């Protein structure tokens, strides 16, 4: 997929990439390399005394069962967020695709949570689920279920998951609807003539055909859940109770910013960077040769 023709070579392309490359070098490459360097240090908070310790920060993490469990937790959290928001979006898109008139109206009505800042989403859900004044704990109590996410780790996890998923439904819906609308009508018609009812058509034709979108969204949602939900967790649970909502990114922040353990936090950053690069490569390869029928 490269261009057949190019402009003749000159210095111009270097000038064109320069701003991006310079910003990248100064504000990314350099700080990232600093982070790598820091991950080999034990340092006091003010940076006044440092000791080079090679991989000690890493081995410390390796031995730390809390760090290991935050891995599993992050994966669980991401999987739940991705699954919930994608499933909900898929269902809505499936129905929106059916209604001939009004699918754009529904799109308008569904699109905007995308614009809400994670921190804000967190604030809204925190308010709705505030054990004392929140509306949901009130309702839940009426049906005999006690809500206290300050105490109950499962509930806290549930809360951040739905807040994160809520924000992402809009985005997923957009892509699913677009994908469904781009399936040639004649294919669903052919299936109808072949005798497949709406549900069967969805299961055997539409869903398989939008699987590239599903895969794409999976990557996007996983990335989102990994990183961008920081604001939600920070606003809602701050990783608690008892670590039950501490994800990897939150832990990097918490150990570095709250605990002022810079070396340990930098080591976690380095591990995250490696993870991200892995995810990026997957995403890149996927987008580059998008699965297409």
């Amino acid at each position, binding site marked *: 997929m490269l261009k057949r023709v190019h402009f003749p070579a000159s210095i111009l392309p270097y000038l064109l990439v320069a701003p991006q490359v310079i910003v990248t070098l100064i504000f990314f490459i350099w700080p990232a390399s600093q982070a790598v360097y820091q991950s080999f240090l034990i340092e006091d*908070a*003010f940076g006044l005394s440092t000791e080079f310790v090679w991989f000690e920060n890493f081995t410390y993490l390796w031995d730390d069962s809390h760090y290991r469990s935050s891995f599993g937790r992050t994966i669980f959290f991401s999987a739940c967020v991705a699954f919930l928001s994608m499933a909900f979006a898929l269902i809505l898109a499936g129905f929106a695709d059916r209604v001939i008139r009004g699918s754009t109206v529904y799109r308008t009505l569904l699109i905007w949570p995308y614009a809400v800042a994670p921190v804000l989403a967190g604030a809204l859900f925190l308010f709705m689920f*505030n*054990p004392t004044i929140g509306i949901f704990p009130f309702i839940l109590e009426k049906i005999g279920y006690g809500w206290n996410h*300050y105490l109950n780790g499962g509930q806290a996890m549930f809360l951040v998951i739905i807040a994160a998923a809520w924000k992402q439904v809009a985005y997923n819906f957009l892509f699913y609807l677009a994908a469904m609308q781009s399936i040639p009508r004649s294919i669903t018609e052919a299936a109808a003539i072949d005798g497949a009812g709406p549900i069967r058509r969805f299961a055997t034709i539409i869903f398989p055909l939008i699987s590239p979108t599903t895969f794409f969204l999976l990557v996007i949602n996983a990335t989102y859940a990994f990183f961008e939900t920081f604001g939600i967790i920070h606003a809602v649970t701050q990783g608690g109770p008892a670590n039950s909502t501490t994800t990897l990114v939150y832990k990097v922040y918490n150990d570095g910013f709250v*605990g002022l*353990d810079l070396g340990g936090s930098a080591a976690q950053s380095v591990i995250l960077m490696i993870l991200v690069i892995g995810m990026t490569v997957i995403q890149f390869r996927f987008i580059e040769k998008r699965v297409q029928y």
Partner: protein
Amino acid sequence: QTEINWWHAMGGTNGERIDKMAADFNASQSDYVVKPSYKGNYTETMTAAIAAFRAGEQPHLVQVFEVGTATMMAAKGAIYPVEKLMADAGEPFNGDDYLPAVVSYYQTPEGELLSMPFNSSTPVLWYNADALEAAGVEVPGTWEEVDAAAKALVDNGMKCGISFGWQSWVMIENFSAWHDLALGTKENGFAGFDTELTFNNDQVAARLQAVADMQADNKFVYGGRRGDSLPMFTNGECGMWMNSSAYYGSIVGQAKFKFGQTMLPLDKTVADAPQNSIIGGATLWALQGHESDEYKGLAQFLTYLSSPEVQAWWHQETGYVPITKAAAELSKEQGFYESNPGTDTAIKQLSLNTPTANSRGLRFGNFVQIRDVINEEMEALWAGNISAQEALDNAANRGNDLLRKFERSVK
């Protein structure tokens, strides 16, 4: 005019009061301008200051909560001990003017005051007087009575008997001091960084276990790590609440019932009489790296902040303890304690006895993280996942690891 930057962690109404103090100071003279900036909660403010210091952009003055003391202290090149600052600037300063329970927390073993006490608090027991009366119980003085009162409140239809916030501070640090128990070796860390945590003793464990057991019939309900449970008290859900005296301002504003504050309950199985409680809240640290002229202004400002009038006002508005003896006197003279019974509880608690090695306070490195660890383990206890002893053992073990890390980092 010389600008003096002051980063603080006082949101809400207290933030307004900070602004007022700065504005008043600015109006009182023309050489200096103090610029307060709200930087988020205690941890965020501290981190912001440290990050700024590393980048050479530090403020002159930063508010750091008591648990950050060890970290700040250890950063010898970064901080400017206030006693020295005052001396260098030629401002009058006399350590004896301050309440011993307050200053002792922030002194070097040699007795030099490192940071300026500003908003010091101590946990007290807040109670809903109307509810207690309705349930027909007296204000409790011991844990036994707390338990009974909680039962009576619940039986009388309340959703919960007692709750508390800042649980490590209230239920472990202050519980230990109150009953003269050590939190760790080496005089709770005052005598050196090679200290180990020892709060996982039978007494604390028994107390926490008993509290955990109180959850069964809602005599105790957990409501979050810091002040999150305040609405439970002000809403009338919980009849009793243990937390900082500094919630006074908020409770006055929000409670629609008659409330009071009393001393922390005594655990008779541990001690016969209370020792003294330890302070919380925060102090103001001066940071290195500015012009001497600026420090001069800063010193003036600190003098201003500690003046009896300012402190008395601050104390009466917020519930933080007055840090100087003069301010306490002034409040008394103004008849504040008489018209607001119970508002002297904090001072009384702090000055109940001469502090012992166990009740002077604590000075553990990485204590912000250790508090996190304690919070985590206590939450696991409240959730019923582990026993009190397990929770404390875990916390002490993990805490000790952090202490060792700290010890290395400041070598």
